[in-house]
Structures are given as C-alpha cells and as structure tokens.
C-alpha cells in the first residue's frame, strides 16, 4: 500500500505541492451535497407553500400547522440527539424558557412580540449552552445526561410554578392583538406560514450542520468521543455548541406555541409532553437525518388524528399510540421512517458517491 514515497504532511506544510485533483475532491463533494439539499428543501418548501391552496379547510390547515410545529420540535431535538448523539429527555427546558421569556417580555415588559421572539431564542440558546456546559464538562452522557435534563426540566416547572414573574401556577396570557406586528394572526393561515418559515430555516440549518465540518466533527464525537479527542477535536465545546443551537430552535417553537395559543402554564411548557413529542418526532423519523423530524412529525400527526377519531372519548389516548409506534420503530426500523420507508435516501447518503445527481436528502 505505501509504495508511493510522498512527503509527510509535516513537511508538506513547507513544501506544499498541492495536487489540484484531490483538492477538488472535497469541494466537489460539498457543492453536490449542498446543492442536493437546497434542491430538496426548496422543492418541499414550494409544496408546503402551495398546500393551503389545495387543503384549505380549517381542519387541514390546523393539521399541517401542528405537524410543522412538531417538526420544529423534532429538528431541535435532532440537532443534539441525532447529530451529537446526546439524548435529552428534558428538551421542554428550552421550549419553556423561550415561551416564558417571550411572555414576560410582552406582559411584564410591555414590549413587542417580535422582541419577545428574539429574546426567547437567545435565552433558549443560552440555556442550551448552559445545560450542555454543565453536563458535558463533567462527562455526563447516555442515560445520565437524559436523567439530568429530565430533572432540570422538572426543576424549571417547579420554579415557574412558584415565582411571581411567571405568574406561578396560574400561567400567563398574552394580550390579544392580531396583526403581523404582534406575531398574532386573525386566521390560521398566518400561523401556518410563520411556522413554515421557521421550519424551513431550521431544516436549512440542519442540512448545513449535516454537511459541514462541524457536523462531521459532531458525528465523530458521537461515534467515538475518545478517538475524536485524540485528533485534537474539542468534544465538549462541540457538544455545547450543538446544545445551544438545539436550545435556540426549541425556544422558537416555544414562542410559536405562546403566540398560537396565547396562554402558557408551567406544565404545558415545562412538562414531559413537549420533551416526548420532540424526541419522538426525531427518533420515529430518523435520528441524525435532515428530513427525519419532518417525516416523524407527519407520522405522529396522522396517528394523533386516528387516535382522536377512534378513541376520541379517552383523553391523551394518542400517547398510548405514540408509545406503540415508538416500540415498533425501535424494534423494526431503528434508523427511523426516513430510511425505512425510503431506502433510496439511504443509498444516496451511503458510501456511493456515484449517484449524486439524483435528488434526495
């Protein structure tokens, strides 16, 4: 194998005889990957932008809106759980921080909802960085990290339940002021396009992470942290960054929830239901894939409707269906629906670089 005598890289640094051929290898691949995902995402974007013209009933719009909202939860969770391999059971932390920050800015601060959105995202990102820094600095992983996030979410719920700035157990209601200036919409369609815009940005961010050096390093840390560290990769810093991104996305979903329902309380935003929805969408759809959370969220939304139709009398019955779905997925499709349903996607993503020109994600 090592027949060719070449300068070791230590010397190549000085001599630097760059072979133009291999230099292009990396560039070409990145361009392909990026072009491919831009094509896929814009195609999907157009479909979703046009969808309300076909499915214009109130029920259909609400269905699509909530599916996109769960997608955003899943994309946020996937950023840390899928790309960095750190499974959180308490992503409601960031959701709640975002929702409460936006509500406090509007109600207590009397400021505009847009400012609340920005504040919510920033605080959510900070909370993500803080939770990540505290956990990863001390080497928490696997089930320990899951338990710590679960516990922090519960602590947040209890704090929100007891202090006055969050309205304690009564919760908070934001003033009803329909209009884009206040991020409230008279009809359902406004919310639909808002969440669509957020999901599009979140998916684009995901796609960038997946194909970037940052994403490759995250995957290396996920697959073998010690080996990554031995290469000089700062595993802790990378995981903290992923956690911050994840927190910011989760927080913007929290802001959406606030603006959509106008009301939050500690259990609604810090309770386990949000965390479970986020991780289910990502795991059911496909951990670490860009479009997985979208597919997972649509599957959950469909299941939810089926549950409501068949067992409408039993509240929260969809949770039972979710549980069954999770068991089936983990047992029969551990890579999620994205790969189970569309093996094409897998082939494109896999080893062969020959089929790059076919569309896929």
């Amino acid at each position, binding site marked *: 194998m090592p027949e060719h005598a070449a300068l070791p*890289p*230590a010397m190549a640094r000085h001599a630097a005889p760059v072979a133009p051929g291999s230099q292009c290898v990396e560039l070409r691949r990145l361009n392909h990957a990026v072009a491919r995902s831009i094509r896929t995402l814009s195609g999907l974007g157009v479909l979703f932008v046009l969808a309300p013209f076909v499915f214009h009933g109130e029920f259909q719009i609400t269905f699509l809106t909530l599916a996109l909202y769960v997608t955003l939860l899943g994309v946020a969770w996937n950023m840390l759980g899928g790309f960095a391999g750190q499974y959180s059971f308490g992503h409601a932390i960031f959701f709640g921080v975002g929702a409460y920050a936006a509500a406090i800015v509007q109600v207590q601060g009397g400021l505009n909802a847009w400012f609340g959105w920005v504040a919510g995202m920033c605080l959510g990102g900070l909370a993500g960085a803080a939770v990540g820094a505290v956990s990863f600095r001390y080497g928490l992983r696997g089930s320990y990290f899951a338990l710590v996030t679960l516990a922090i979410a519960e602590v947040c719920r209890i704090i929100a339940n007891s202090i006055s700035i969050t309205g304690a157990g009564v919760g908070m209601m934001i003033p009803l002021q329909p209009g884009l200036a206040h991020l409230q919409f008279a009809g359902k369609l406004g919310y639909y396009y808002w969440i669509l815009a957020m999901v599009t940005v979140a998916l684009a961010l995901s796609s960038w992470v997946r194909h970037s050096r940052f994403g490759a390093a995250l995957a290396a840390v996920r697959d073998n942290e010690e080996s990554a560290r031995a290469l000089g990769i700062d595993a802790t810093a990378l995981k903290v960054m992923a956690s911050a991104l994840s927190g910011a996305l989760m927080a913007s979903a929290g802001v959406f929830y606030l603006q959509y329902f106008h009301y939050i309380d500690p259990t609604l935003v810090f309770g386990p239901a949000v965390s479970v929805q986020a991780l289910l969408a990502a795991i059911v759809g496909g951990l670490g894939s860009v479009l997985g959370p979208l597919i997972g969220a649509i599957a959950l939304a469909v299941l939810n409707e089926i549950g409501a139709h068949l067992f409408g009398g039993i509240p929260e019955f969809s949770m039972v269906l979710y549980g069954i779905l999770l068991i089936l997925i983990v047992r029969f499709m551990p890579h999620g629906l994205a790969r189970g349903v569309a093996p094409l996607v897998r082939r494109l993503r896999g080893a062969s670089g020959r089929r790059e020109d076919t569309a896929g994600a």
Partner: protein
Amino acid sequence: MNRAEPLLEINGLASGYGPIGILRAITLSVRAGEIVALLGSNGAGKSTLIRTLCGLLTPSAGSICWLGRDIAGASSQSIVAAGLVQVPEGRRIFPNLSVQDNLLLGSYRRGRAARQANLAAVIERFPRLGERARQAAGTLSGGEQQMLAIARALMAEPRLLILDEPSLGLSPKMVDTLFELISQLHRQGLAILLVEQHVAQSLALASRAYVLENGAMAFSGTPAQLLASDQLRRAYLGV
C-alpha cells in the same frame, strides 16, 4: 533539525484512573527523528502512558516536556496542535463517516489550505484511500482501516507519531506492509513512539527501547542491550 534534540522528555511521571495509580516514576525520552519502542506485557500500563501523554488522562505527578514546554495536564487539543499525535489502539476510525471525512477530521484544527495540502499528500501516499474517499470508513478491510487511522494522524501534521499496537488484528502480510510504512515514515524524518507486540520487528526498527512492567520502567536501552539480557527476554518478550 538537530537529531540529538529531545522532542519529548518524561520525568517521574505518575498517572492512572482517578485514585487508582497505574504508572509510577516513568522516565522516557524521544529525540527528533528516532523510533523508540515501548514494550511490555498486557496490563503493564502502556496504553495508560499514551493516554496520559496525549492529554486524555491527567498525570498525578511528574513532568511531560514537549519541545521544552511542560504539557502535563494540558488539553488534548492543544497537545495535538503542538504536533504530538497518537494513533489509538484498535484503530478507532469513525465507521459511519466517509474515508475523506475521517481524514479531514485529522486536520480539523488547520486552515483550509493546510487541510487540502495534507489531504493531497496523504492520498498520494495511500492511493487506496483516495480510491475509496467517499466510501463509509466502516466498509474498509482491517488493514485499510489501520492505514486510514495512520493517515488520519498524519493529517494532524505530527512531529512525533505515537502508534499504539498498530499491528493488532492484522494479517501477517499486512503487518509487513505496516512495518515498511513505519520505516518509510522514519526515513522521512518523523519521530515515532511504537508500542507493539511484534517485538522482533519493532526492535529491528527502533534505535532505543523501553520495557514497562507493572506500571514502572523495567528497562531502557538499545535493542541490542535488551536482546542481550536473557532475563528481560524471558520475562517480557517470550523470544
């Protein structure tokens, strides 16, 4: 570069996992451009020593001087950036990433131009890896994976390359190829600290050897001295 100049000088090093001490009073040095063999039976502390050198474990006592600077307790990323790079035992490539991504991660901390230059140089040295650049690394054969692990370490622009049992699990033919590669790297001026079970082949390449026993240095000297000492041969090498 002055060949006598020590790259790495370890003095009185003690290390281990938490309160459990494994290494005691370790002294070792590697000069620029030389191959040093580190031998010892399983459990003697070789991997612990390497993990400590690379910043994955924090030493409890002693000094690790790298290019005249004490790096004991420094972060693994700053140690790698300074040119002390290991190829961990058992290869530890990233199976789900492409061969190319594995390689590029070796140069993670370098600028784009340096990454590309390193990639070009490494692919020229290992044409096989170039052919399989886009394949998932997990699909490579064991020998190719070891070459990838070494190539990835070369991407980090090492001045001293630490190879931890690189021949583990390789076919005899592949072991020969591996030792040929090591001697080639050596001829090109790279210093190498070689931890190996293939004692005879390692000693043939090395200019000096150390033997670790139960966490302490039991021998240091030239391969000839080591081979001449019957006791050492019987006790540690089984040759």
